[in-house]
């Protein structure tokens, strides 16, 4: 059981059942569970989509696409079966929200997926959970078994005449599969590599059928929207950014953890009040606002509202809500290197700029941090990252390039401090000894 934190500013919607044992189906039913899906069955597809549209719910996976609109793109008539897919392949460094949902409220995801299926008239829903979340798979497996045992899924659910099957599927440990088309490939049993788009999943998706694919948190919000009404949900957040979301505060904070805050909550307040300020009384250096793939914000740039549009205006992205706080004792070059090591390891290898780009950024940053940097390397790093940006097959290349560009742009002086064979100024011991082993 993960340790739960709380703060008075929190608005508990998704997390309303956290810590209440809702993984148990009886307890979940006591807490108004599976009422929304029954309401949805009565409302019918059109009304459900309208309700979700009214809620201004935007995808919680990172891109922030309006969920209601996504659902409305699915063709009404289709020769091939339609599918609903829950993306629970939460792998973004700094993000740990879906984990809590699967642990504390798995039925909310199931119910959300069922409502989505009803909305697009699909009869099969898959819940794909990150392979490393082994213990969550077991929880999900039991939850789905319970749902079937109660007759909530399968043939004729809730006596409505509607057939709906719900399946779970475990990943095999690839960050790349968090990308929706790669996830579909993986679910089909193939190599987890992204697909060419268009066609988009809403038209040609899983096994060629129209597919709705949503983040686990998005789907977990849906039952609440149906219960409380779209407008009421929208009112919690800022215009165009409805509701609340789970922010994962991590890094050098006094009180890190997952907090459910309304959209548009101030970042500075989030760090200093909700997160309890920087640990050990140090000073803030930088913040990564939305998981490791979003560009960094400096200490001067954090007085912003945390919604999709405001963060974008500040030159970064709200992403998956993983707020990583970096204090002034951290070497940004090393942070960039650590980030790049991750992306190099997770690049699927499909397209050249991402495969080679992450590898060479990793090589250069490794040498650079170890004191072997040349003045031209700084520009080379930026050049390489800029040429990956927007040119790779899928967003993974962007995810690796964007933060790197941000680090070089905003902390160039720290890069320069590593030049001329100088050891990393933040390392207590000689920098050379910190050189990670390069694998070829």
């Amino acid at each position: 059981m993960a340790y739960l934190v709380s703060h008075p500013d929190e608005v508990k919607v998704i997390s309303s059942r956290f810590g209440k044992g809702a993984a148990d189906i009886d307890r979940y039913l006591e807490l108004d569970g599976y009422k929304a899906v029954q309401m949805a069955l009565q409302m019918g597809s059109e009304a459900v989509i309208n309700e979700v549209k009214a809620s201004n719910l935007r995808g919680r996976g990172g891109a922030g696409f309006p969920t209601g609109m996504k659902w409305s793109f699915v063709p009404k008539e289709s020769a091939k079966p339609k599918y609903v897919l829950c993306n629970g392949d939460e792998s973004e460094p700094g993000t740990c929200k879906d984990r809590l949902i699967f642990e504390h409220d798995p039925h909310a995801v199931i119910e959300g997926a069922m409502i989505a299926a009803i909305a697009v008239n699909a009869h099969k829903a898959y819940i794909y959970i990150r392979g490393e979340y082994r213990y969550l798979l077991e929880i999900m497996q039991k939850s789905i078994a319970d749902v079937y045992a109660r007759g909530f899924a399968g043939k004729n659910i809730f006596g409505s005449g509607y057939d709906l099957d719900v399946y779970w599927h475990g990943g095999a440990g690839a960050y790349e599969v968090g990308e929706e088309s790669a996830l579909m490939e993986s679910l089909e049993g193939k190599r987890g590599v992204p697909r060419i788009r268009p066609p988009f999943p809403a038209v040609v998706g899983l096994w060629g059928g129209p597919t709705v694919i949503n983040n686990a948190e998005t789907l977990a919000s849906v039952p609440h929207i149906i219960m409380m009404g779209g407008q009421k949900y929208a009112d919690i957040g800022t215009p165009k950014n409805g509701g609340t979301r789970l922010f994962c505060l991590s890094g050098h904070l006094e009180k890190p953890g997952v907090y459910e805050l309304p959209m548009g909550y101030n970042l500075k307040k989030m760090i200093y009040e909700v997160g309890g300020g920087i640990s050990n009384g140090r000073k803030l250096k930088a913040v990564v606002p939305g998981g490791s793939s979003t560009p960094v914000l400096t200490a001067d740039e954090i007085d912003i509202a945390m919604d999709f549009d405001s963060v974008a205006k500040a030159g970064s992205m709200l992403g998956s809500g993983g707020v990583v706080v970096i204090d002034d004792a951290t070497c940004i070059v090393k942070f960039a290197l650590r980030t790049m090591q991750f992306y190099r390891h997770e690049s699927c290898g499909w397209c050249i700029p991402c495969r080679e780009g992450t590898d060479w950024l990793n090589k250069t940053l490794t040498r650079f941090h170890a004191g072997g940097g040349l003045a031209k390397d700084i520009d080379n790093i930026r050049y390489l990252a800029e040429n990956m940006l927007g040119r790779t097959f899928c967003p993974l290349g962007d995810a690796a390039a964007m933060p790197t560009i941000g680090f070089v742009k905003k902390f160039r002086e720290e890069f320069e401090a590593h030049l001329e064979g100088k050891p990393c100024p933040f390392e207590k011991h000689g920098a050379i000894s910190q050189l990670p082993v390069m694998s070829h």
Partner: protein
Amino acid sequence: MADAPKLVNITVNGKKTTAPAGTLLIEACKQIGIEVPSFCYYPGLSLQGACRMCLVEIEKMPKLQTACTTPVAEGMVVNTESEKVVQSRKAMLEIVLANHPLDCPVCDAGGECELQDMTYTYGAAESKFIDIKSHRDEQQWSPVVFFDRPRCILCYRCVRVCGEGMDVWALGVQNRGQGSVIAPNKQDHLECEECGMCIDICPVGALTSGSYRYKTRPWEMNHVGTVCTHCGDGCLTTVGVRRSDTGMEIVRCDNRDKSGINGDFLCVKGRYAFDFAANQERITQPLIKRDGKFVPATWTQAIELVADKFKQVVQKDGPQAIGVIGSNRTTNEENYLLQKFARLVLGTNNIDHHRTADFPAFAKAISENKARTASMRDVFEAPAVLLIGNDPTEQHPLLAWQIRNNVRLHRSKFYIVNSQAIKLRRQATQFVQIPTGAEARFVDFLSGNDAAAGTLTQAGASNENLSQLRDALKGEQNLVVIFGSELRGADISALVKFAAPQNAKFICLGDYANSRGAADMGLFPDLLPGYATFAGAARYQQEWGADVPALVGMDLKQMFGAARDGKLKALYVVGSNPVSRYALDPFVLQAPFVVVQDMFMTETAIAADVILPAAFAYEKSGTFTSTCGDLQMLRKAGDVVSVKSDFEIVVRIAEKMGYDVRKLVPFGKGLRADMGQSRGAQSGEADRHSVWLQARGLEPKVSPFDPLATLDEIQRLIPGYDVSQINLVSGNDEHTQLVQIQNASIPSHPELVVPSNDTLFTSGTLGRYSTVLNSVMERRATGKEVAAD
């Protein structure tokens, strides 16, 4: 057929153009001469979008888009040369080159490498990166496939061509990210059809050919386009030759220029099995048997001996005492000349060849039903294909490729009737397995005899399957019907009769490179060229200015019988091995005077009195007719000193026998000669002047050894062969129809048809002497099929 797709208007670099809706942008650009570079895009294979070289700017799209995955849309405005695009292209090359070793001087692809070309074109000469490149050791995957990982840029062309094109699925990708590596299906080695498509399709030098490896450089060779010498499909192959001690050595064969019917396709035989030409055991000088032992002789001695003996036999025992056996692997001109030699010079109709399909019956069936034959190109475009018997994957690899890709790219229907579960069944719309040898009964069933169905159902096909198939076939218009040597004689007639009303086209499968040509050229004791009976000999006598012997000759088996009975005094075997093919007793050849023209000491050659070393297809010019009837021109590529083409040998023997060579070969016609001095064309260069002259028949055929003079005669005499010579000369294929042949009394001898039963890794005598073919392990383990993906 569906309506032609709607045209949409697009603008590329300010040029306005139209393209059918759904065309990929990269193809639309190519149409108007704008090149968009790409590694991973390959026409005919699934889209990849992996190399990011083809990024272009499209108006209203914020990011650069890949031209290889974007279909054109109405009003699209594209810029392929904007500053952003040019910069991106250069950066992509820099990124590719970051880890690509710069070992061009030792790389086999150096000089014909797409990455090299692009680096020169788009400029990424300087490397920004100073870190150590990743390295992996080179691997050998099979005797013919080597893989050098660091050079690989992971365009996945090899994986796709192996899976989608060949349906072999022997290559895949292991690991991910920087560790991604192309891997063979058996851990450290390949078990596949060894076609080598992966090598040719590789844009860089990552996959290299075991037989060509490190031998020479592309610019050191002359590249000569000619026709493959193995099976009857008529693939064009580009032979790379370079000078050596003994003439011109053949270094490699491929078809990267995508010329011919086969595009870039070649099978293991076409790509690697040329090495028999340089085999140590090849006979390279005339041999005369003295006291039971072969003794080397000069050409003059040998030809004189042969001519004298032939003349003696004709004078003493009459022309009926000489037999001539022709070849499935000599050119049309040589076959034509040989039958003319037998009929006019020797004065006998005792001429035959190893028959691998019942072409006379096929010709009869086609003309009776006014049906048409299909070309190899038709197989790729037909809306439906029916295959009865044969295993094209093994025996007709190009045919299999055409069928597979027709099914994959055009969604055509494909019906198979076979006694074995052949590999092509994976592509089949319907596959019906019938008992061995029941193909004829199946045709009977097709023709309406429902009772025949009862004898077909043993191997798993139900009555229902069969009826379903028959109904489906009756509903197919423009069907292409392909059948193997399982069907002969009257069965062919019945099949043609069944399908002809639906506008079907037909292919009869023969085994060797020029089996069809040998039949078309009249290597029969009872048929003249073009399947004409002696009743129609007048045309020929007029052209030849001599009488055709009236007596029907002996077929191959009868000749051996006559030899046993002592009636046959001389036998002239050209490029054939009847002793082995027909399992005949070689001892009957002890009595007659036997002359064998061949490359190797075959079972028949051992029994010879004189062996004349012959050149093979890559060492001479002429034409081949593929089993479909596609006529193509051979060009001389290789050369071995002291061997002669069969054409030259026959002419020389005739001349020594005192025959007027001018009557045999219509040479010396044409205009005043420009012998090439004024053209300045060097070998290997396209000689437009010569092409122009040849195409108009103006090229002087000044030598009696020039087969093209005979081609003129063939074109005049044989119905269906009067095709455009300009197309032939410029390396294209011309389909010859059998329709004009009107003769109901064509004799057919089904019992003489002996299929060669070659597989992918055997090719008659030539295959026996090919080191590469014998070295691939699949040769010993045929019949194993690699599972589909």
